Protein backbone atom coordinates (compact mmCIF):
# COMPACT_ATOMS: atom_id res chain seq x y z
CA UNK A 1 0.00 0.00 0.00
CA UNK A 2 1.57 3.17 -1.20
CA UNK A 3 0.65 5.39 1.78
CA UNK A 4 2.46 2.97 4.10
CA UNK A 5 5.68 3.76 2.24
CA UNK A 6 5.50 7.28 3.70
CA UNK A 7 5.53 6.16 7.32
CA UNK A 8 8.66 6.56 9.43
CA UNK A 9 7.76 3.98 12.08
CA UNK A 10 10.81 2.67 13.89
CA UNK A 11 13.21 5.10 12.19
CA UNK A 12 15.71 7.28 14.02
CA UNK A 13 16.01 10.81 12.63
CA UNK A 14 18.77 13.26 13.57
CA UNK A 15 17.78 16.86 12.86
CA UNK A 16 20.15 19.80 13.25
CA UNK A 17 18.93 23.29 13.97
CA UNK A 18 16.00 21.63 15.73
CA UNK A 19 15.74 24.20 18.53
CA UNK A 20 13.36 26.49 16.68
CA UNK A 21 11.59 27.39 13.45
CA UNK A 22 11.57 24.87 10.64
CA UNK A 23 13.91 22.47 12.48
CA UNK A 24 11.56 22.18 15.41
CA UNK A 25 8.56 21.86 13.09
CA UNK A 26 10.31 19.05 11.21
CA UNK A 27 11.23 17.24 14.43
CA UNK A 28 7.60 17.23 15.56
CA UNK A 29 6.29 16.27 12.15
CA UNK A 30 8.81 13.38 11.83
CA UNK A 31 7.67 12.16 15.23
CA UNK A 32 4.04 12.32 14.08
CA UNK A 33 5.05 10.16 11.12
CA UNK A 34 6.50 7.61 13.53
CA UNK A 35 10.20 8.42 13.98
CA UNK A 36 12.18 8.82 17.19
CA UNK A 37 14.13 12.06 17.15
CA UNK A 38 17.63 13.24 17.93
CA UNK A 39 17.40 17.02 18.14
CA UNK A 40 20.55 19.11 17.88
CA UNK A 41 21.18 22.85 18.07
CA UNK A 42 23.29 25.21 20.12
CA UNK A 43 20.77 26.14 22.79
CA UNK A 44 19.77 23.60 25.43
CA UNK A 45 16.63 25.47 26.53
CA UNK A 46 15.25 25.58 22.98
CA UNK A 47 15.99 21.89 22.52
CA UNK A 48 14.08 21.09 25.68
CA UNK A 49 11.02 22.81 24.23
CA UNK A 50 11.40 20.77 21.01
CA UNK A 51 11.75 17.58 23.06
CA UNK A 52 8.59 18.39 25.00
CA UNK A 53 6.65 18.82 21.74
CA UNK A 54 8.09 15.62 20.27
CA UNK A 55 7.22 13.63 23.38
CA UNK A 56 3.59 14.76 23.12
CA UNK A 57 3.35 12.64 19.97
CA UNK A 58 4.46 9.60 21.97
CA UNK A 59 7.90 9.35 20.37
CA UNK A 60 11.31 9.56 22.03
CA UNK A 61 13.56 12.58 21.75
CA UNK A 62 17.25 12.77 22.61
CA UNK A 63 18.64 16.29 22.75
CA UNK A 64 22.28 16.96 21.95
CA UNK A 65 23.46 20.58 22.28
CA UNK A 66 25.83 21.01 19.35
CA UNK A 67 27.65 23.76 17.48
CA UNK A 68 27.50 22.30 13.98
CA UNK A 69 30.47 24.39 12.81
CA UNK A 70 32.67 22.44 15.23
CA UNK A 71 33.43 19.03 13.75
CA UNK A 72 34.39 17.48 17.09
CA UNK A 73 31.00 18.39 18.49
CA UNK A 74 29.31 17.09 15.34
CA UNK A 75 31.14 13.75 15.69
CA UNK A 76 30.05 13.59 19.32
CA UNK A 77 26.46 14.36 18.26
CA UNK A 78 26.39 11.41 15.85
CA UNK A 79 28.03 9.14 18.43
CA UNK A 80 25.46 10.11 21.07
CA UNK A 81 22.60 9.36 18.67
CA UNK A 82 23.97 5.94 17.75
CA UNK A 83 24.75 5.12 21.40
CA UNK A 84 21.19 5.96 22.45
CA UNK A 85 19.27 4.23 19.66
CA UNK A 86 21.76 1.73 18.21
CA UNK A 87 21.15 2.99 14.68
CA UNK A 88 20.59 6.13 12.63
CA UNK A 89 18.30 6.15 9.61
CA UNK A 90 17.79 9.79 8.68
CA UNK A 91 19.94 12.90 8.86
CA UNK A 92 18.35 16.29 8.23
CA UNK A 93 20.93 19.04 7.82
CA UNK A 94 18.76 21.99 8.65
CA UNK A 95 21.10 24.16 10.77
CA UNK A 96 22.38 27.30 9.13
CA UNK A 97 20.92 30.51 7.90
CA UNK A 98 21.52 33.80 6.23
CA UNK A 99 23.26 36.69 7.93
CA UNK A 100 22.03 39.92 6.42
CA UNK A 101 24.91 41.91 7.86
CA UNK A 102 27.25 39.64 5.89
CA UNK A 103 25.73 40.68 2.53
CA UNK A 104 27.99 43.63 1.76
CA UNK A 105 30.26 44.88 -1.01
CA UNK A 106 32.98 42.31 -1.59
CA UNK A 107 35.89 44.54 -0.58
CA UNK A 108 34.39 44.91 2.90
CA UNK A 109 34.13 41.19 3.56
CA UNK A 110 36.91 39.84 5.76
CA UNK A 111 38.51 36.40 5.50
CA UNK A 112 36.95 35.52 8.83
CA UNK A 113 33.45 36.45 7.61
CA UNK A 114 33.92 34.44 4.41
CA UNK A 115 35.00 31.38 6.39
CA UNK A 116 32.23 31.80 8.95
CA UNK A 117 29.60 32.00 6.18
CA UNK A 118 30.85 28.84 4.52
CA UNK A 119 31.27 27.06 7.87
CA UNK A 120 27.73 27.82 8.98
CA UNK A 121 25.98 26.70 5.83
CA UNK A 122 28.30 24.24 4.09
CA UNK A 123 31.03 22.84 6.35
CA UNK A 124 28.39 22.07 8.98
CA UNK A 125 26.53 19.83 6.53
CA UNK A 126 29.76 18.18 5.35
CA UNK A 127 30.76 17.42 8.96
CA UNK A 128 27.38 15.90 9.79
CA UNK A 129 27.31 13.71 6.66
CA UNK A 130 30.86 12.54 7.37
CA UNK A 131 29.91 11.71 10.95
CA UNK A 132 26.81 9.62 10.15
CA UNK A 133 27.79 7.84 6.94
CA UNK A 134 29.86 5.01 8.47
CA UNK A 135 26.81 3.97 10.49
CA UNK A 136 24.52 4.21 7.45
CA UNK A 137 26.97 2.13 5.41
CA UNK A 138 27.01 -0.45 8.19
CA UNK A 139 23.19 -0.54 8.00
CA UNK A 140 23.25 -0.50 4.17
CA UNK A 141 20.41 1.98 4.55
CA UNK A 142 20.14 5.68 5.13
CA UNK A 143 18.57 8.96 4.08
CA UNK A 144 20.27 12.34 4.03
CA UNK A 145 18.24 15.50 3.55
CA UNK A 146 20.17 18.74 3.12
CA UNK A 147 18.52 22.14 3.25
CA UNK A 148 19.65 24.38 0.42
CA UNK A 149 17.96 27.55 -0.82
CA UNK A 150 16.84 29.31 -3.98
CA UNK A 151 20.17 31.09 -3.53
CA UNK A 152 21.84 27.71 -4.05
CA UNK A 153 20.64 27.88 -7.65
CA UNK A 154 20.49 31.61 -8.41
CA UNK A 155 22.68 34.55 -7.49
CA UNK A 156 21.94 37.31 -5.01
CA UNK A 157 23.47 40.76 -4.96
CA UNK A 158 26.25 41.05 -2.36
CA UNK A 159 25.21 37.69 -0.93
CA UNK A 160 28.54 35.87 -1.44
CA UNK A 161 28.85 33.43 1.42
CA UNK A 162 25.26 32.27 1.61
CA UNK A 163 24.98 31.78 -2.14
CA UNK A 164 28.26 29.89 -2.40
CA UNK A 165 27.54 27.71 0.60
CA UNK A 166 24.00 26.81 -0.49
CA UNK A 167 25.21 26.08 -4.03
CA UNK A 168 27.87 23.91 -2.44
CA UNK A 169 25.19 22.03 -0.53
CA UNK A 170 23.59 20.95 -3.80
CA UNK A 171 26.91 19.70 -5.15
CA UNK A 172 27.74 18.00 -1.85
CA UNK A 173 24.39 16.24 -2.07
CA UNK A 174 24.94 15.05 -5.64
CA UNK A 175 28.38 13.73 -4.76
CA UNK A 176 27.08 11.86 -1.73
CA UNK A 177 24.23 10.46 -3.83
CA UNK A 178 26.60 9.03 -6.42
CA UNK A 179 29.11 7.74 -3.92
CA UNK A 180 26.60 5.95 -1.69
CA UNK A 181 23.95 4.84 -4.20
CA UNK A 182 25.19 1.26 -4.02
CA UNK A 183 24.89 1.28 -0.23
CA UNK A 184 21.18 2.04 -0.48
CA UNK A 185 21.72 5.51 0.94
CA UNK A 186 19.86 8.39 -0.72
CA UNK A 187 20.87 12.04 -0.42
CA UNK A 188 18.59 14.83 -1.57
CA UNK A 189 18.11 18.57 -1.09
CA UNK A 190 15.11 20.61 -0.13
CA UNK A 191 15.10 24.07 -1.68
CA UNK A 192 12.69 26.12 0.41
CA UNK A 193 11.18 29.37 -0.75
CA UNK A 194 10.11 31.86 1.87
CA UNK A 195 8.76 30.50 5.14
CA UNK A 196 8.22 33.25 7.70
CA UNK A 197 8.03 30.96 10.77
CA UNK A 198 4.93 32.51 12.26
CA UNK A 199 6.07 36.01 11.39
CA UNK A 200 8.41 36.27 14.37
CA UNK A 201 10.75 38.67 12.54
CA UNK A 202 8.78 41.86 11.96
CA UNK A 203 11.37 43.51 9.75
CA UNK A 204 11.55 40.47 7.47
CA UNK A 205 7.77 40.26 7.30
CA UNK A 206 7.68 43.82 5.97
CA UNK A 207 10.25 42.85 3.37
CA UNK A 208 8.25 39.74 2.34
CA UNK A 209 5.10 41.82 1.59
CA UNK A 210 2.88 38.81 2.24
CA UNK A 211 4.50 37.00 -0.68
CA UNK A 212 3.24 39.34 -3.42
CA UNK A 213 6.38 38.60 -5.46
CA UNK A 214 5.87 34.83 -5.24
CA UNK A 215 3.96 33.29 -8.18
CA UNK A 216 1.26 31.74 -5.99
CA UNK A 217 0.88 35.09 -4.21
CA UNK A 218 1.60 33.97 -0.68
CA UNK A 219 4.38 32.85 1.65
CA UNK A 220 4.97 29.24 2.60
CA UNK A 221 3.57 27.88 5.84
CA UNK A 222 5.87 25.90 8.12
CA UNK A 223 3.42 23.00 8.08
CA UNK A 224 3.86 22.70 4.31
CA UNK A 225 7.52 21.82 4.57
CA UNK A 226 7.14 18.76 6.77
CA UNK A 227 5.51 16.49 4.17
CA UNK A 228 8.37 17.05 1.71
CA UNK A 229 10.94 16.15 4.35
CA UNK A 230 8.90 13.08 5.26
CA UNK A 231 8.65 12.02 1.62
CA UNK A 232 12.44 12.29 1.25
CA UNK A 233 13.01 10.41 4.52
CA UNK A 234 10.60 7.58 3.73
CA UNK A 235 10.75 4.52 1.50
CA UNK A 236 8.45 6.31 -0.99
CA UNK A 237 11.54 8.15 -2.30
CA UNK A 238 13.95 5.21 -2.46
CA UNK A 239 14.65 5.75 -6.16
CA UNK A 240 15.22 9.47 -5.90
CA UNK A 241 18.75 10.55 -5.07
CA UNK A 242 21.05 13.47 -5.88
CA UNK A 243 17.92 15.50 -6.53
CA UNK A 244 16.79 18.88 -5.25
CA UNK A 245 13.15 19.73 -4.84
CA UNK A 246 11.99 23.32 -4.69
CA UNK A 247 9.07 24.14 -2.43
CA UNK A 248 8.65 27.78 -3.26
CA UNK A 249 5.23 28.55 -4.71
CA UNK A 250 6.66 28.54 -8.22
CA UNK A 251 9.50 31.01 -7.64
CA UNK A 252 12.28 29.07 -9.32
CA UNK A 253 10.09 28.04 -12.26
CA UNK A 254 10.06 31.70 -13.21
CA UNK A 255 12.41 34.60 -12.70
CA UNK A 256 12.63 35.81 -16.30
CA UNK A 257 10.10 38.55 -15.64
CA UNK A 258 9.01 39.86 -12.24
CA UNK A 259 6.00 38.06 -10.80
CA UNK A 260 2.82 39.71 -12.00
CA UNK A 261 4.55 41.34 -14.97
CA UNK A 262 3.18 39.64 -18.07
CA UNK A 263 4.34 40.11 -21.67
CA UNK A 264 1.40 41.61 -23.62
CA UNK A 265 -0.62 39.22 -25.80
CA UNK A 266 0.36 39.14 -29.46
CA UNK A 267 -2.57 37.09 -30.68
Amino acid sequence: MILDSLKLDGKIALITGAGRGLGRAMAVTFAEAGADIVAASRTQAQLEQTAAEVKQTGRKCLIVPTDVTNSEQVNAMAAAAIKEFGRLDILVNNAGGGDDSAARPIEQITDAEWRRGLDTNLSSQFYACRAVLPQMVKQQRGKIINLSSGYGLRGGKHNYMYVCAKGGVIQLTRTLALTYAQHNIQANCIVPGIFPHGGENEQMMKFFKGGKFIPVGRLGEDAELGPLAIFLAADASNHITGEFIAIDGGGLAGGISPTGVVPPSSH
Partner: protein
Amino acid sequence: MASGNVLDGFSLEGKCALVIGAESAVGGAAAVALAEAGAKLLVASQEPGTDKALKEVAKAIQAANGNKTTTRTQNAAIRAELSATADLAVNELGGLHILVNALDVPAFGPAEEADDTSFERIIENNLKTVWMACQEGGRVMLKQGSGSIVNITSVLAERGVPNAVLYCAAKAGVLNLTRALALEWARRGIRVNALEAGWLDDESSVAAKDAEFGKTLLKYLPDNKLIKPEELGGALIYLVSSASSFVTGESIAVDGGLRARV
Protein backbone atom coordinates in the same frame (compact mmCIF):
# COMPACT_ATOMS: atom_id res chain seq x y z
CA MET B 1 -3.13 21.45 4.60
CA ALA B 2 -4.96 18.59 6.18
CA SER B 3 -5.12 18.89 9.94
CA GLY B 4 -4.34 15.99 12.22
CA ASN B 5 -1.50 13.63 11.42
CA VAL B 6 0.94 14.92 8.82
CA LEU B 7 0.61 11.70 6.85
CA ASP B 8 -3.08 12.46 6.16
CA GLY B 9 -1.87 15.14 3.72
CA PHE B 10 -0.74 12.41 1.31
CA SER B 11 -4.13 10.72 1.20
CA LEU B 12 -6.25 11.13 -1.94
CA GLU B 13 -9.48 10.09 -0.24
CA GLY B 14 -12.38 11.90 -1.93
CA LYS B 15 -10.24 13.18 -4.82
CA CYS B 16 -11.24 12.70 -8.46
CA ALA B 17 -8.41 11.86 -10.81
CA LEU B 18 -7.98 11.43 -14.55
CA VAL B 19 -4.98 9.55 -15.93
CA ILE B 20 -4.36 9.96 -19.65
CA GLY B 21 -2.10 7.39 -21.28
CA ALA B 22 -3.09 4.69 -18.81
CA GLU B 23 -2.50 1.88 -21.30
CA SER B 24 1.27 2.27 -20.93
CA ALA B 25 3.26 0.70 -18.10
CA VAL B 26 3.94 4.11 -16.54
CA GLY B 27 0.37 5.37 -16.95
CA GLY B 28 -1.11 2.15 -15.60
CA ALA B 29 1.18 2.16 -12.59
CA ALA B 30 0.33 5.82 -11.96
CA ALA B 31 -3.39 5.01 -11.99
CA VAL B 32 -2.93 2.16 -9.53
CA ALA B 33 -0.83 4.35 -7.21
CA LEU B 34 -3.53 7.03 -7.18
CA ALA B 35 -6.16 4.39 -6.46
CA GLU B 36 -4.12 2.93 -3.60
CA ALA B 37 -3.91 6.40 -2.09
CA GLY B 38 -7.70 6.67 -2.20
CA ALA B 39 -8.58 8.56 -5.39
CA LYS B 40 -11.60 7.88 -7.60
CA LEU B 41 -10.43 7.45 -11.17
CA LEU B 42 -11.20 7.73 -14.81
CA VAL B 43 -8.51 6.07 -16.90
CA ALA B 44 -8.14 7.13 -20.50
CA SER B 45 -5.79 6.01 -23.23
CA GLN B 46 -3.33 7.84 -25.43
CA GLU B 47 -4.09 5.70 -28.46
CA PRO B 48 -7.17 3.94 -29.82
CA GLY B 49 -7.36 0.15 -29.88
CA THR B 50 -6.15 -0.14 -26.29
CA ASP B 51 -9.35 -1.37 -24.61
CA LYS B 52 -7.73 -4.52 -23.36
CA ALA B 53 -4.84 -2.74 -21.64
CA LEU B 54 -7.22 -0.26 -20.01
CA LYS B 55 -9.42 -3.07 -18.71
CA GLU B 56 -6.33 -4.64 -17.12
CA VAL B 57 -5.61 -1.34 -15.36
CA ALA B 58 -9.23 -1.13 -14.18
CA LYS B 59 -8.87 -4.64 -12.77
CA ALA B 60 -5.69 -3.67 -10.92
CA ILE B 61 -7.45 -0.61 -9.51
CA GLN B 62 -10.32 -2.73 -8.27
CA ALA B 63 -7.81 -5.02 -6.58
CA ALA B 64 -6.19 -1.96 -4.98
CA ASN B 65 -9.23 -0.15 -3.61
CA GLY B 66 -12.30 -2.18 -4.52
CA ASN B 67 -13.69 0.49 -6.85
CA LYS B 68 -15.12 -0.06 -10.30
CA THR B 69 -13.39 2.31 -12.68
CA THR B 70 -14.59 3.76 -15.95
CA THR B 71 -12.18 3.39 -18.83
CA ARG B 72 -12.20 5.48 -21.95
CA THR B 73 -10.35 4.54 -25.08
CA GLN B 74 -9.46 7.65 -27.02
CA ASN B 75 -6.93 9.20 -29.32
CA ALA B 76 -5.16 11.87 -27.26
CA ALA B 77 -3.97 13.57 -30.44
CA ILE B 78 -7.54 14.66 -31.16
CA ARG B 79 -8.67 17.64 -29.14
CA ALA B 80 -12.39 16.88 -29.26
CA GLU B 81 -11.72 13.50 -27.68
CA LEU B 82 -9.62 15.00 -24.88
CA SER B 83 -12.27 17.61 -24.31
CA ALA B 84 -14.98 14.95 -24.03
CA THR B 85 -12.76 12.95 -21.69
CA ALA B 86 -12.33 15.93 -19.33
CA ASP B 87 -16.10 16.46 -19.31
CA LEU B 88 -16.70 12.76 -18.74
CA ALA B 89 -14.37 12.85 -15.73
CA VAL B 90 -16.45 15.62 -14.17
CA ASN B 91 -19.74 13.85 -14.91
CA GLU B 92 -18.57 10.43 -13.76
CA LEU B 93 -16.49 11.42 -10.75
CA GLY B 94 -18.12 14.65 -9.67
CA GLY B 95 -15.09 16.86 -10.31
CA LEU B 96 -11.52 16.84 -11.50
CA HIS B 97 -8.89 17.45 -8.84
CA ILE B 98 -5.99 15.55 -10.32
CA LEU B 99 -4.82 15.16 -13.91
CA VAL B 100 -1.86 12.93 -14.70
CA ASN B 101 -0.57 13.07 -18.25
CA ALA B 102 1.41 9.93 -18.99
CA LEU B 103 1.67 10.72 -22.69
CA ASP B 104 4.72 9.16 -24.24
CA VAL B 105 5.73 7.48 -27.47
CA PRO B 106 9.50 6.94 -27.45
CA ALA B 107 11.20 7.55 -30.79
CA PHE B 108 14.82 6.83 -31.63
CA GLY B 109 16.63 7.27 -34.92
CA PRO B 110 19.35 9.25 -36.71
CA ALA B 111 18.69 12.99 -37.00
CA GLU B 112 19.63 13.13 -40.66
CA GLU B 113 17.01 10.51 -41.53
CA ALA B 114 14.11 12.20 -39.76
CA ASP B 115 11.76 13.90 -42.22
CA ASP B 116 9.14 16.52 -41.54
CA THR B 117 6.54 13.86 -40.80
CA SER B 118 8.80 12.41 -38.10
CA PHE B 119 9.05 15.85 -36.56
CA GLU B 120 5.32 16.35 -36.53
CA ARG B 121 4.58 12.84 -35.28
CA ILE B 122 7.12 12.85 -32.44
CA ILE B 123 6.26 16.35 -31.26
CA GLU B 124 2.55 15.55 -31.48
CA ASN B 125 2.81 12.26 -29.57
CA ASN B 126 5.01 13.61 -26.82
CA LEU B 127 4.31 17.35 -26.52
CA LYS B 128 1.16 18.45 -28.33
CA THR B 129 -0.93 15.80 -26.58
CA VAL B 130 0.34 17.01 -23.19
CA TRP B 131 -0.44 20.60 -24.13
CA MET B 132 -3.97 19.80 -25.23
CA ALA B 133 -4.61 17.61 -22.18
CA CYS B 134 -3.42 20.42 -19.88
CA GLN B 135 -5.70 22.88 -21.66
CA GLU B 136 -8.76 20.61 -21.58
CA GLY B 137 -8.20 19.47 -17.98
CA GLY B 138 -7.29 23.04 -17.08
CA ARG B 139 -10.55 24.34 -18.53
CA VAL B 140 -12.44 22.27 -15.98
CA MET B 141 -10.04 23.02 -13.13
CA LEU B 142 -10.09 26.79 -13.74
CA LYS B 143 -13.87 26.73 -13.45
CA GLN B 144 -13.51 24.73 -10.25
CA GLY B 145 -10.77 27.04 -8.95
CA SER B 146 -8.50 24.18 -7.95
CA GLY B 147 -6.52 21.27 -9.30
CA SER B 148 -3.18 19.56 -9.52
CA ILE B 149 -1.64 18.52 -12.83
CA VAL B 150 1.39 16.25 -13.16
CA ASN B 151 3.04 15.80 -16.53
CA ILE B 152 5.21 12.72 -16.70
CA THR B 153 8.25 13.38 -18.83
CA SER B 154 11.73 11.90 -18.89
CA VAL B 155 15.23 12.77 -17.66
CA LEU B 156 15.93 13.18 -21.38
CA ALA B 157 14.14 16.51 -20.91
CA GLU B 158 17.29 17.91 -19.33
CA ARG B 159 20.08 15.99 -21.07
CA GLY B 160 20.85 15.22 -24.66
CA VAL B 161 20.92 11.66 -25.98
CA PRO B 162 22.17 10.78 -29.45
CA ASN B 163 19.71 9.15 -31.83
CA ALA B 164 16.81 10.78 -30.02
CA VAL B 165 16.93 14.43 -30.98
CA LEU B 166 13.22 15.02 -31.54
CA TYR B 167 12.21 12.91 -28.55
CA CYS B 168 14.61 14.92 -26.36
CA ALA B 169 13.19 18.17 -27.74
CA ALA B 170 9.62 17.07 -27.05
CA LYS B 171 10.44 15.93 -23.50
CA ALA B 172 12.19 19.24 -22.79
CA GLY B 173 9.14 20.98 -24.20
CA VAL B 174 6.94 19.23 -21.66
CA LEU B 175 9.22 20.33 -18.83
CA ASN B 176 9.21 24.02 -19.70
CA LEU B 177 5.54 23.95 -20.64
CA THR B 178 4.99 22.73 -17.08
CA ARG B 179 6.94 25.65 -15.59
CA ALA B 180 5.26 28.33 -17.71
CA LEU B 181 1.77 26.96 -17.15
CA ALA B 182 2.45 26.71 -13.41
CA LEU B 183 3.29 30.42 -13.34
CA GLU B 184 0.28 31.37 -15.42
CA TRP B 185 -2.19 29.50 -13.23
CA ALA B 186 -0.34 29.99 -9.92
CA ARG B 187 -2.98 32.36 -8.53
CA ARG B 188 -5.93 30.43 -9.88
CA GLY B 189 -5.58 27.43 -7.60
CA ILE B 190 -3.97 25.08 -10.08
CA ARG B 191 -0.57 23.56 -9.48
CA VAL B 192 1.37 22.12 -12.42
CA ASN B 193 4.40 19.92 -11.84
CA ALA B 194 6.45 17.36 -13.73
CA LEU B 195 7.89 13.99 -12.96
CA GLU B 196 11.00 12.93 -14.87
CA ALA B 197 11.34 9.19 -15.25
CA GLY B 198 14.79 7.61 -15.51
CA TRP B 199 15.56 4.68 -17.82
CA LEU B 200 12.71 2.24 -17.32
CA ASP B 201 12.71 -1.41 -16.37
CA ASP B 202 9.80 -2.53 -18.49
CA GLU B 203 9.35 -4.65 -21.60
CA SER B 204 8.31 -1.52 -23.52
CA SER B 205 11.55 0.25 -22.60
CA VAL B 206 14.46 0.63 -25.00
CA ALA B 207 16.70 -0.58 -22.17
CA ALA B 208 14.86 -3.90 -22.17
CA LYS B 209 14.39 -4.20 -25.92
CA ASP B 210 18.11 -4.02 -26.65
CA ALA B 211 20.10 -6.24 -24.30
CA GLU B 212 23.47 -4.70 -25.13
CA PHE B 213 22.26 -1.14 -24.63
CA GLY B 214 20.56 -2.19 -21.38
CA LYS B 215 23.72 -3.82 -20.07
CA THR B 216 25.87 -0.79 -20.81
CA LEU B 217 23.29 1.46 -19.22
CA LEU B 218 23.13 -0.56 -16.01
CA LYS B 219 26.86 -0.10 -15.47
CA TYR B 220 26.45 3.65 -15.94
CA LEU B 221 23.54 4.07 -13.49
CA PRO B 222 24.65 5.13 -9.99
CA ASP B 223 22.81 2.26 -8.27
CA ASN B 224 22.98 -0.07 -11.30
CA LYS B 225 19.22 -0.31 -11.44
CA LEU B 226 16.59 0.65 -13.95
CA ILE B 227 13.41 2.30 -12.66
CA LYS B 228 10.27 0.18 -12.38
CA PRO B 229 7.10 2.05 -13.42
CA GLU B 230 5.55 1.59 -9.95
CA GLU B 231 8.60 3.24 -8.38
CA LEU B 232 7.36 6.59 -9.71
CA GLY B 233 4.36 6.25 -7.41
CA GLY B 234 5.75 7.92 -4.28
CA ALA B 235 6.76 11.12 -6.07
CA LEU B 236 3.45 11.13 -7.93
CA ILE B 237 1.43 10.90 -4.72
CA TYR B 238 3.50 13.69 -3.19
CA LEU B 239 2.95 15.97 -6.18
CA VAL B 240 -0.79 15.43 -6.64
CA SER B 241 -1.73 15.52 -2.96
CA SER B 242 -2.14 18.46 -0.59
CA ALA B 243 1.22 17.38 0.92
CA SER B 244 2.84 19.52 -1.81
CA SER B 245 0.50 22.52 -1.53
CA PHE B 246 3.38 25.04 -1.90
CA VAL B 247 5.07 23.21 -4.81
CA THR B 248 4.38 24.30 -8.38
CA GLY B 249 6.41 24.58 -11.57
CA GLU B 250 8.79 21.98 -10.15
CA SER B 251 9.94 18.63 -11.48
CA ILE B 252 11.08 15.60 -9.56
CA ALA B 253 13.41 13.14 -11.23
CA VAL B 254 13.00 9.51 -10.25
CA ASP B 255 16.18 8.23 -11.80
CA GLY B 256 18.32 6.58 -9.14
CA GLY B 257 20.73 9.53 -9.14
CA LEU B 258 21.42 9.53 -12.88
CA ARG B 259 20.88 13.26 -13.31
CA ALA B 260 23.37 14.04 -10.52
CA ARG B 261 26.32 12.47 -12.34
CA VAL B 262 28.61 13.99 -14.95
